[in-house]
């Protein structure tokens, strides 16, 4: 059985950031993921916001890690080549009754150490964001609020960790965790490994994983959030992230421009029983649209290009659960919002815990925090692109016409850590298929490139993991391409 110093369970943004931090040191680390790709849970379907940190209860772990994470994120994004835009957050109130609630938020934010917060009138808010509804009376302005691409961040963090020596095992669903001496044995049934330290970053399944190790009897409730993504044409409708005044169920439905220039609206908040149920509902989507339109009256249903749902992992305490109930077993559980924002700080915090528990953290001689951005080619000038195409003609072959993604960029993604194995994996790494036609034109080409890279027949390529077969076989008398 292979032995490691640390086994991290769950390749979401928290697991990814912890692995990346560990990869700086001479620590044998393995990242275990039950799905066929990384970033398959809440980290791929959320609001993509780096929260300023004003709405967490002062004194909580959430408050501390959010503010710290938000400070760290810009540098992390730069090192990993992930787009990050500090676009300001606005919390709007529609009545004078909302004003005290916003003042309460302002006060909390100040106590949490958030810089630059300001309560502004409707005129000031609309001067910043002319598209805002006339109904807006007051707004809390948070200049440190930012947006990031959450799946690019997670994939890049895992890739960077792998480049620095971390091992990724996908398709490894942890079923049992045992302990002999000071070594944990983590098993999927088919495969097993040993590690001195186990870090539970299993998202909505963090309760089950903790229970396997006898390390916690908390329950994680999946809270579904539905979203709608709008065409880039209406991305210009707003620059900032606009929140409604929050309620007990969370920060409510927000409207934001994404780093890629789309408009994202959502999420709903609905506690559900099924930890796999990421289906959208007619009522949910209707609610998202109605509430978003109250903030930005110009949005139109005609501009929706896709909708989706994600599951936040909601713990019982209202705060993150980051603890070490058993020697060498660390829980990172209940990492709901602001989990994405906090992830770099959670990693820092967990590394501290590991150090205090005796893990030797000797820095590697050869460590690089940097990674070539996914979008390196897209961001070149036309002259620079021309140079690249001369060296490698694949960058002159356009595959995804809506997002402008070339064969060269797709080949890059196919050979860069962590490698994609299916159509959606390529989509998350390159944006091919994320545009207004939603892959109608490019997916037959991307399938071909994937089949070539994986060495499998065209008809065997999948959409997103096992069982998601795209084709049922060949046509009558068709020959293999």
């Amino acid at each position, binding site marked *: 059985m292979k032995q490691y110093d640390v086994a991290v369970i769950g390749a979401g943004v928290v697991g990814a950031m912890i692995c990346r931090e560990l990869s700086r040191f001479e620590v044998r680390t393995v990242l275990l993921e039950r799905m066929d790709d990384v970033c398959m849970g809440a980290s791929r379907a959320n609001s993509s916001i780096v929260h300023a940190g004003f709405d967490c209860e002062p004194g909580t772990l959430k408050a501390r890690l959010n503010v710290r994470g938000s400070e760290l994120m810009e540098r992390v994004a730069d090192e990993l080549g992930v787009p990050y835009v500090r676009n300001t957050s606005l919390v709007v109130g529609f009545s004078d009754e909302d004003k005290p609630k916003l003042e309460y938020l302002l006060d909390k934010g100040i106590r949490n150490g958030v810089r630059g917060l300001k309560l502004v009138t409707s005129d000031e808010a609309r001067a910043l964001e002319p598209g805002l509804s006339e109904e807006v009376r007051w707004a809390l302005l948070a200049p440190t609020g930012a947006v990031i691409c959450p799946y690019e961040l997670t994939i890049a963090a895992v890739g960077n960790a792998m480049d620095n020596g971390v091992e990724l095992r996908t398709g490894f669903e942890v079923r049992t965790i045992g302990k002999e001496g000071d070594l944990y044995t983590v098993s999927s049934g088919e495969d097993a490994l040993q590690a001195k330290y186990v870090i539970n970053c299993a998202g909505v399944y963090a309760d089950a994983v903790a229970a396997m190790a006898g390390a916690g009897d908390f329950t994680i409730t999946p809270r579904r959030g539905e979203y*709608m*993504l709008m065409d880039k044409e209406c991305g210009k409708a707003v620059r900032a992230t606009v929140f409604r005044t929050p309620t007990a169920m969370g920060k409510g439905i927000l409207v934001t421009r994404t780093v890629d220039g789309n408009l994202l609206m959502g999420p709903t908040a609905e506690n559900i029983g099924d930890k*796999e149920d*990421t*289906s*959208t*509902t*007619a009522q*949910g*989507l209707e609610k998202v649209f109605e509430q978003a339109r109250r903030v930005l009256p110009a949005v139109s*249903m*005609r501009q*929706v*290009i*896709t*909708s*989706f749902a994600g599951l936040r992992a909601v713990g019982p305490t209202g705060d993150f659960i980051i603890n070490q109930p058993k020697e060498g077993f660390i829980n990172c559980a209940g990492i709901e919002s602001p989990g994405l924002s906090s992830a770099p700080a959670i990693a820092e915090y967990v590394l501290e815990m590991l150090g205090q528990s005796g893990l030797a953290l000797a820095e590697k001689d050869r460590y690089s925090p940097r990674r070539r951005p996914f979008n390196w080619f897209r961001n070149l000038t*036309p*002259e620079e*692109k*021309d*140079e690249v*195409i*001369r060296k490698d*003609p*694949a960058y*002159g*072959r*356009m595959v995804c*016409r809506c997002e*402008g993604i070339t064969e060269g960029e797709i080949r890059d993604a196919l050979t860069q850590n962590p490698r994609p194995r299916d159509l959606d994996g390529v989509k998350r790494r390159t944006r091919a298929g994320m545009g*207004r*036609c*939603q*892959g*109608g*034109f490019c*997916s*037959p080409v991307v399938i071909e490139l994937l089949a070539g890279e994986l060495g499998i027949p*065209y*008809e065997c390529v*999948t*959409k*997103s*993991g*096992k*069982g*998601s*077969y*795209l*084709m*049922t*076989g*060949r*046509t*009558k008398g*068709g*020959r*293999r*391409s």
Partner: protein
Amino acid sequence: MSLKTLKTDLAIIGGGPAGMSAAVAAYDAGVRNLLILERDGALGGILQQCIHNGFGLHRFGEELSGPEYAHRYEEMVRQRNIPFKLNTMVLDLTQDRRITATNSEDGVFYVDAGAVILAMGCRERPRGALNTPGTRPAGIYTAGTAQKLVNVKGCMPGRDVVILGSGDIGLIMARRMTLEGARVHAVCELMPYSGGLARNIEQCLHDFDIPLYLSTTVVGIKGRERLESVQIASVDENRRPIPSTIREIPCDTLLLSVGLIPENELTKSAGVPLDRTTQGAVVDQDRMTRVPGIFSCGNVLHVHDLVDYVSDEAAVAGRAAAAYLSGLEPGKEEIEIVPDGLVRYTVPQRLTRREQTRIFFRVGGIYRNVRIVVRDGEREIYSAKKLKVAPGEMESITLSKDVMRTLSGGRLEIGLEETP
């Protein structure tokens, strides 16, 4: 290093049926310095994957398959030695007709053109645009993507199929999937009538006993990895699903034929005003947009039912571009054509010369025993009886030069009226 800059009299963006026909017509009208830019690896556009018959009845007087129809035009392009660049993507177009494009051979390059014909075609509305709730499994394709997989890649997207939308590609694919051994359980159409051609309903559905459910839509999608079933429901007159009518159809494939959208991203980047209904450019009788020297034709201008009409329209644009390049002054009149709502839109939307003009249009519903009426103020200047008009079929009328000469001015109204 500066980028390569080509100069041409006429640049045609798109080498499908519209682009090829426009190029041939422009050449025949005397343009010798012209260039077709095509993003695909071959000329022909979407016709390459339309292996069914029914193309060319009007244009060639015989029934051709899509690739055969495209081949006829490709031969005309080749006979004239009209240059074209394949695998070439146009990235940008400016109002003063500078094109930025990219391909493997030329890198990123500019084309400065005296005139530009837009012939980029259209794309399909995807699932995301419908807001159909449910999961997001494999097995949901637009009909055109499925057509490419079957006809070009030789792969079956699935075995048990439901089709949403009765646009022509959906109807064609119902038959195609059946011929390949799949079971097509239903074609659902939100509207109380089909958006496809009557002949396709007969030949693709009725001949194969495939049920067409009108005023019906898909309200739910189930299946985690692969599609397992869809829920369908009847809709009321406001197109809202009626909960008591929901039923589930097990299937592994959902094909969508729910509308085509002209691909006008470049048109917008050039600042060309669009028609809200067609989602294509506003054009005059020459298919010139409101930006002088930029023309538009084919499915990028408005979605056609028959490729034969695409070719005709593109030839108009090609000849007009040639005239524009030869220095012929554009028309000076400004006559707006205003549809009454029953007529949804017209192409052209405006007239700048008083000459014989054919006006194409589509109606918003099925109407029987109507008159198509054109009025110049109070005066009826044209009328024609029709037994039936339907949204799936493009209609046209021709205003003679004599009628055009009598017009009082700025505005023509076109509509449907009951026959007396």
